[in-house]
């Protein structure tokens, strides 16, 4: 089930999609499934399940802390697939966000097969660019999985074109030059990047959706980003609600719901 399904729906409603991220196994495997389902209920259009990794170079302290907690709790790659299966069963397109080594270790083709049979939509690969990922591209193409590569404000025109041409599902635009984490104000680099990507996609005859991630933490920021992007991607702010709840499940879920509703309101206000 490609994320294209979600974009068809949100485009019909004339709004941007809300993409919500949590790492699998945080705070526990069952806890993350419950939390992700709560995010679906409260208004996320697409879910990103993070695969916790020991060396997350693109993540700031918040997601590092959650991934660390998940790994300490003994989460395995198979638990990530189980989480995807449970969330995808809600009918909401569900992708995995992962650093590359765990996929290579699991077996690229085997992972693609197991992800597809779990009902997963595809992969977001923060440290795998299309020119370094022929094996993943082949495995994803064989199963119609979404290949969501990142573009950055520093991407050259050539790389931007190469990357958007390789994406399926959506293009992930990193709004800032930096790591994940909530920021006080939205980035001034994101708008121009999305505009460049949009022009490039038009030249390629594609209407692929463009999502913007890194830094969004509230409805107002979501509304700003939704004014020019097809999707607003939120990670650290969701993780933060659960970290702040310090193990109190009811408090954490309530905060998660409240944040989702705020953000879902934002993408509808733009």
């Amino acid at each position, binding site marked *: 089930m490609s994320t294209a399904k979600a974009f068809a729906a949100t485009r019909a409603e004339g709004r941007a999609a809300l993409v919500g991220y949590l790492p699998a196994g945080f705070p526990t495997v069952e806890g993350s499934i419950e939390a992700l389902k709560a995010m679906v209920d409260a208004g996320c259009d697409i879910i990103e399940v993070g695969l916790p*990794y020991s060396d997350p*170079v693109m993540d700031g302290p918040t997601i590092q802390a959650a991934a660390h907690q998940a790994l300490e709790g003994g989460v395995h790659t198979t638990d990530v697939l189980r989480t995807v299966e449970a969330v995808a069963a809600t009918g909401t397109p569900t992708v995995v966000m992962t650093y590359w080594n765990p996929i*290579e*270790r699991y077996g690229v083709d085997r992972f693609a097969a197991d992800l597809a049979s779990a009902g997963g939509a595809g992969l977001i690969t923060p440290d795998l*660019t299309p020119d370094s990922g022929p094996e993943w591209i082949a495995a994803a193409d064989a199963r119609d999985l979404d290949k969501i590569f990142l573009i950055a404000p*520093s991407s*050259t025109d050539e*790389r931007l074109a190469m990357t958007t041409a390789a994406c399926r599902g959506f293009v992930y635009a990193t709004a800032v*030059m930096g*790591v994940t984490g909530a920021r006080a104000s939205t980035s001034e680099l994101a708008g121009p990047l999305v505009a460049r990507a949009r022009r490039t996609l038009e030249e390629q005859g594609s209407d692929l959706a463009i999502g913007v991630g890194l830094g969004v933490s509230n409805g107002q920021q979501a509304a700003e980003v939704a004014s020019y992007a097809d999707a607003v991607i939120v990670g650290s702010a969701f993780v933060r609600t659960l970290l702040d709840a310090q193990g109190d499940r009811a408090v954490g879920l309530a905060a998660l719901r409240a944040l989702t509703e705020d953000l879902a309101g934002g993408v509808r206000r733009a």
Partner: protein
Amino acid sequence: MSGTTIEGSYGEFGGRFMPEALIAELDRLTAVWHEAMADADFIGEFDRMLREYAGVPSLLYDATRLSEVAGARILLKREDLNHTGAHKIRNVLGQALLAKRMGKTRMIAETGAGQHGVATATAAAYLGLDCVVYMGELDTKRQALNVARMRLLGAEVRAVASGSRTLKDAINEAIRDWVASVEHTAYCFGTAAGPHPFPAMVRDFCRGIGDEARAQCLERTGTLPDVVTACVGGGSNAIGLFTAFLDDADVRIVGFEAGGEGVDTPRHAATITAGEVGVLHGARTYVLQDADGQTIESHSISAGLDYPGVGPEHAHLAKTGRAEYRPITDTEAMDALALLARTEGIICAIESAHAVAGALKLAKEAPGSTILVNLSGRGDKDMETTTTWFGLGDPAETISSEAAR
């Protein structure tokens, strides 16, 4: 012979597994590096800095008393005598000069033992660049002297408290800094690992070790050594030595990894010996990892070898058989360190002691051969570890531990 086919790949190893945000900069760095290496002015300036500032070429020293004990002729390439006390100065002067060429005003670095951090802080002071060094919290404690040296040199040392709080986490944190600061900041990578162009660039800045040693050996002995050896963590000193000998088919090449408490225990850093192929810090190479591909924390008594990955060219040389890689335990390294100190009056770094210990083994296997060892660093920085290991702080304890040997 080094097997570089596509740029940045070494057989199946190497490559560039990095966030898109950094790719444009890595491309730019690659272009500027190529251009600089073809520029006589750049090479001239690099050579001048090495000669007039770093004390290079380092001596090749005939370790006759150690050789007598070992039963083979052991030649030591005295990189421990370089300015800042290790081979690392070669790499940082090259990268700092490139940083200036690229118009950068700030350098960041990761460090394990602190040698690369001290070298980077030194080069930054020498060339007038701001400097921030990331160091695992655990290593800042093991290497407090080097932290003080970096601070004295004007660098800011940031202790990294995430993950295993050692070298790999310092690299993670430096990459995070670089993603946000790339416009004005150069990442002075400390070893011949990481994404392209670092493995090749660091090798080229360090290859003077082998080029000099090869010429010095020919001049001294009239022939090439039978074996060249070095310790291997990430592998910059080793690739710096090995490169000059890759095409000398008769010269055996052996790298010594940190075997820690033994490769049959979980506490070691013998990546090629006991790791499996994976991707770490931007390159495909051998990695200490679990069944899910999570990096396993390495262990070595030597902070500079305490790294769960290894440079991709070493992975390739191991795979093709051109070089061999063998583990040396903490105990073997420390015994060799003491033996070298007592036979030659040289206190080497614990990293380098792994190569000395390896040479002693090779000597037993091939008595009478000539073994060239890269003595990559000096041991002052390790005196706290050494004092504890040998019980040197307490005279009574020292005597009993010596009696036990």
